[in-house]
């Protein structure tokens, strides 16, 4: 483990750019902290934090100049590996029939800075879907291989976070290249850095660092411990799959259906939700056609449309139930883990503030 003085953080950015990476990191925009391409650490939301609660997110000034003193915002890294819209292939009409061309573009080298523990888990979960199944999504895989990941251990959790009970945070544990813990104490501001890969170690070696002293390591551990202790929201996952499978007719689904707007925000912000649909785009001449993929949501009517029956899940209730049981129960059967990493986004960004942890509690309290 090494320490990097806070004013040396810029070196990391410069180095990564020199290695050909575009740097994507938290940035302040439109009254929130989102992920965007940045140039230097000063583009980070220095000295800002957020106050989150169900259906509400507010930026706030911090007392200090922390670079990473906030929790996750409305964006997730899935936009990098699974872009909201993307061309899969194109077809051109020919004398006889048509030809199809693979339009895969070479992915960009991207350095993701400030990836949180829960987000690393989310990426691992999407890897299971797109790389580790029967088929491999070539776009996803290629982009995934071009990532350099700088994780940040959370020094600040939001009121909506519940990674502790999902065992996904606040300390970064899944694959990363570098992991930083930001420490601000007395007059010192530094990062305790740990390499998680050979690439990461090489990068670390090229920065001006010092070997972390025991006290510094302890300070870093303290940061994470304090964060963990501050997380009050919980989701009891014990026997959850069975509980939900056995309660598909629970009256609570009717209750949540009244509050749910079926707006789909929860699925869009969720870092693991991977559903997509396709659109066929043609030009006016009809000689060219493109096959695009775009994010879809199980909250739309088209999602489960089949001819003759219409939407299989036409009620709000069935759509919310699909979403929640998929996240928390059937995901285990499909991919061997929960589909929820406890990032709290769907709670914060749901306009009515529907809280997945509360919905589980309500069913648990009164199971069938």
């Amino acid at each position, binding site marked *: 483990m090494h320490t990097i003085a806070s004013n040396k953080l810029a070196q990391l950015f410069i180095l990564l750019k020199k290695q050909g990476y575009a740097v994507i990191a938290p940035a302040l925009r439109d009254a929130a902290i989102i992920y965007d391409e940045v140039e230097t650490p000063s583009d980070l939301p220095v000295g800002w934090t957020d106050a989150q609660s169900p259906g509400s997110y507010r930026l706030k000034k911090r007392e200090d100049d922390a670079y990473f003193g906030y929790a996750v915002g409305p964006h997730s890294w899935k936009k990098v590996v699974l872009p909201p819209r993307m061309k899969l292939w194109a077809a051109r009409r020919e004398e006889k*029939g*048509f030809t199809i061309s693979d339009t895969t573009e070479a992915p960009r080298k991207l350095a993701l800075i400030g990836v949180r523990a829960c987000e690393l888990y989310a990426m691992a979960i999407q890897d299971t879907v797109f790389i580790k199944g029967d*088929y491999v999504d070539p*776009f996803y895989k290629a982009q995934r291989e071009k990532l350099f990941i700088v994780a940040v251990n959370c020094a600040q959790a939001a009121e909506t976070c519940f990674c502790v009970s999902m065992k996904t945070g606040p300390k970064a544990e899944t694959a990363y290249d570098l992991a930083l813990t930001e420490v601000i104490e007395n007059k010192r501001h530094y990062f305790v850095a740990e390499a998680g890969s050979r690439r990461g170690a090489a990068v670390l070696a090229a920065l001006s660092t010092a070997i972390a002293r025991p006290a510094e390591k302890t300070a870093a551990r303290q940061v994470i411990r304090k964060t963990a202790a501050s997380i009050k929201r919980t989701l009891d996952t014990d026997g959850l799959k069975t509980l939900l499978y056995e309660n598909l007719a629970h009256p609570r689904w009717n209750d949540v259906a009244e509050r749910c707007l079926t707006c789909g925000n929860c699925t869009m912000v969720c870092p693991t939700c991977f559903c*997509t649909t396709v659109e066929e785009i043609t030009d006016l001449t009809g000689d060219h056609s493109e096959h695009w993929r775009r994010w*879809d949501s199980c909250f739309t009517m088209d999602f489960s449309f089949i001819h003759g029956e219409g939407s299989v899940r*036409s009620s709000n*209730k069935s759509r919310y139930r*699909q979403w929640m049981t998929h996240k928390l129960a059937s995901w285990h059967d499909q991919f061997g883990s929960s589909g929820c990493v406890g990032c709290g986004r769907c709670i914060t960004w749901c306009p009515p503030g529907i809280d997945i942890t509360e919905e589980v509690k309500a069913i648990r309290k009164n199971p069938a």
Partner: protein
Amino acid sequence: MPAPPRNPPAGATSPYLPYPAEIVEKRLESRGVYTFRLRFLDEVRHKNYDFRPGQFNMLYIFGVGEVAISIVSDPEIGETLDHTVRIVGNVTEALNRLDVGDVIGIRGPYGSAWPLEAAKGKDVIILTGGLGCAPVVSVINYITARRDDYGALKIFHGVKTPKDLLYRERIRAWQKDARTEVYLTVDHPDHAWQYSVGIVTNLFTQIQLDLSNSIVMMCGPGIMMHHAVRDLCSRGMRMDQLYVSLERNMKCALGFCGHCQMGPNFLCKEGPIFRYDRIRHWFETPAI
């Protein structure tokens, strides 16, 4: 269950790409239903193409989109690759505008197959309604071509009106086989109708079924299947003797798009054909 053959093999190229194939024959089966015989433009691909009865392909119509359609031909007759399509909407209507010589795209095969190994030596009861018939035709063809491997073959087929009856010629051919029984029923008969009237399950009462040594394969509207399952189980059929073919909205057939889920199952991977006891919990939950 052996892993389904992949086309193209994992990792080789993008699994999203369809391969061009020509329509070599287009046959009207009944009102609004056609069988398309297809041939990959790439001879090698055509020769190597392999599937199991019950699997499906994604058919692509230029400029319109893709749909999931079961393969109905016999995998061992390498020359043929048939799909029977009911013309219902966007893509299928566009397909219907095409004719012999036109080119469409194919990727596949996908999904699970009928339990033709498990059924060896047993009676096979086939239950279909409406267009449900298409996916099971492959089974019937398969069994009639290997008649000695199986016991009695009993085909129950229900449609709305006599006009909706598919495969009239084939049915006549099936009827000729001594160990194959074909039972037809319609909801609304016309004066020329010589078979039964009413729902398919009504026929069970009239016919001797050896339930202990049978495998049932079913495909059709949800309501029909619900009735049939209940009826057969009440007669002592075990759920693991029943196989159903299900439908869900489908976009990619690769397990990526998420549309075809039914509980924990992806219809494009675990389905579309399920042993009933494995899907029951979901099948019986409305709007799941």
